[in-house]
């Protein structure tokens, strides 16, 4: 049995016919064609598939596409400007060596994006560590990722003054 769903991804509307069992991660990658959302484990452990749904970070491998009918989805491709200029957070990841192979990066960026725009944003290392604790990285050892997020958190707090 299929369902017709209509949702917005990074500001563009997509209407598709999907099977109920299609994961949102597969919808984003296969139907929409945005392969920046990575799929590492498909059981909620790695965080590589993190997206924002109606502004809230979630693991797209733990939702069915049909559940996102009517929702506003943001993926890593939505962070850069239309012209391709990287966001402040992406630049900070690059400058601080916050990535090596890059497999985990989309998930970290989306989780960090929510943290940096949320009420609990902080430059405290432990708070940042906790905020990204749901994401796994096999390359960096995390410290450089934390450095990048702290850099942007500092700017964010400055802007809020």
């Amino acid at each position: 049995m299929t369902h017709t769903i209509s949702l917005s991804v990074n500001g563009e509307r997509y209407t598709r016919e999907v099977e109920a069992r299609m994961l949102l991660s597969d919808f984003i990658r296969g139907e929409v064609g945005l392969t920046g959302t990575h799929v590492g484990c498909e059981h909620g452990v790695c965080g590589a598939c993190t997206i924002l749904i109606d502004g809230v970070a979630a693991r797209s491998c733990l939702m069915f596409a049909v559940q996102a009918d009517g929702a506003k989805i943001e993926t890593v491709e939505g962070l850069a400007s239309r012209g391709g200029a990287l966001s402040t957070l992406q630049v900070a990841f690059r400058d601080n060596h916050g990535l090596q192979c890059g497999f985990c990066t989309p998930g970290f960026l989306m989780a960090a994006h929510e943290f940096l725009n949320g009420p609990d944003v902080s430059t405290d290392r432990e708070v940042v560590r906790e905020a990204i604790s749901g994401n796994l990285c096999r390359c960096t050892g995390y410290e450089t990722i934390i450095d990048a997020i702290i850099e942007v958190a500092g700017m964010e707090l400055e802007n809020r003054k």
Partner: protein
Amino acid sequence: MKPSPFEYLRPDTLEAALRALSDHKDRDAKVLAGGQSLVPMMNFRVAAPEVLIDLNGIGELSGISEEDGVLRIGAMTRAAAVKSNAQVALRMPLIPMAYEHVAHATVRNRGTLGGNLCHCDPASEMPMVMLVCEAEMEIAGPGGTRTEAAEDFFLGTYTTSLEPDEILTAIRIPFARPGARFAFEEVSLRRGDFAMVAVGVRLEAEGGICKSLAIGLCGIATVALRAEAAEAEAAGHELARLNPAQLAETAVAGIPFEDTATQTAAFRRDTTRALVQRALETCLTSEAT
């Protein structure tokens, strides 16, 4: 892997959800809450429901309110919302303390309190917390509603007293008594992982006398439990005379610890004893709420 095919239903009232459950009871129908435990199981095909009834469209199942000394949390209230709620922190401080150890922010954004309790993982913190606060479950079924005490609700690994055609609608938690103190301790491989051992304590005292002590344990048996012998040993005694090390010894005395793939029984016993002792020490030295 990918889930097996299923029929997806999204009712927008509790009544319609209950009807859907009864209508499809011969077809392995399951309800979907936050999906943070059920969807991984479906992706692995450990679970393959033929009918999936999504509760996310039912507004009446979420929200936090209070009446007559009881905090009421709708089953579909997200973990993130419960964790950061000021009313919850005031009425039952043990809940936000424990939530610090439950999964990660992104998982808590979607996981629900009700789903966490219905899933009933032996290493899950919240069923144990519900035993310690002596919460009650509000349950709706085809024949109407009933309430059940936490101690009768959690039965074993992934097993509660819910019938297949019932839905947990809310959790009712009595307010912390004036002067109550709480502590929560956990050991897990990484912060946010399921507990190897976790301990929750509620201590109520009046005029320097221990009126009631509740010690909850999880991760060590097929279901969360209370250390009743140690609780009884403390009741009625002066706080100044309570010996955390002795009580912790009593707490683990009756438990048949077993080896697991990664931990020996002796390690699990020692860890549990140490955490009970630490939690009791925290309660005895902390200010009453």
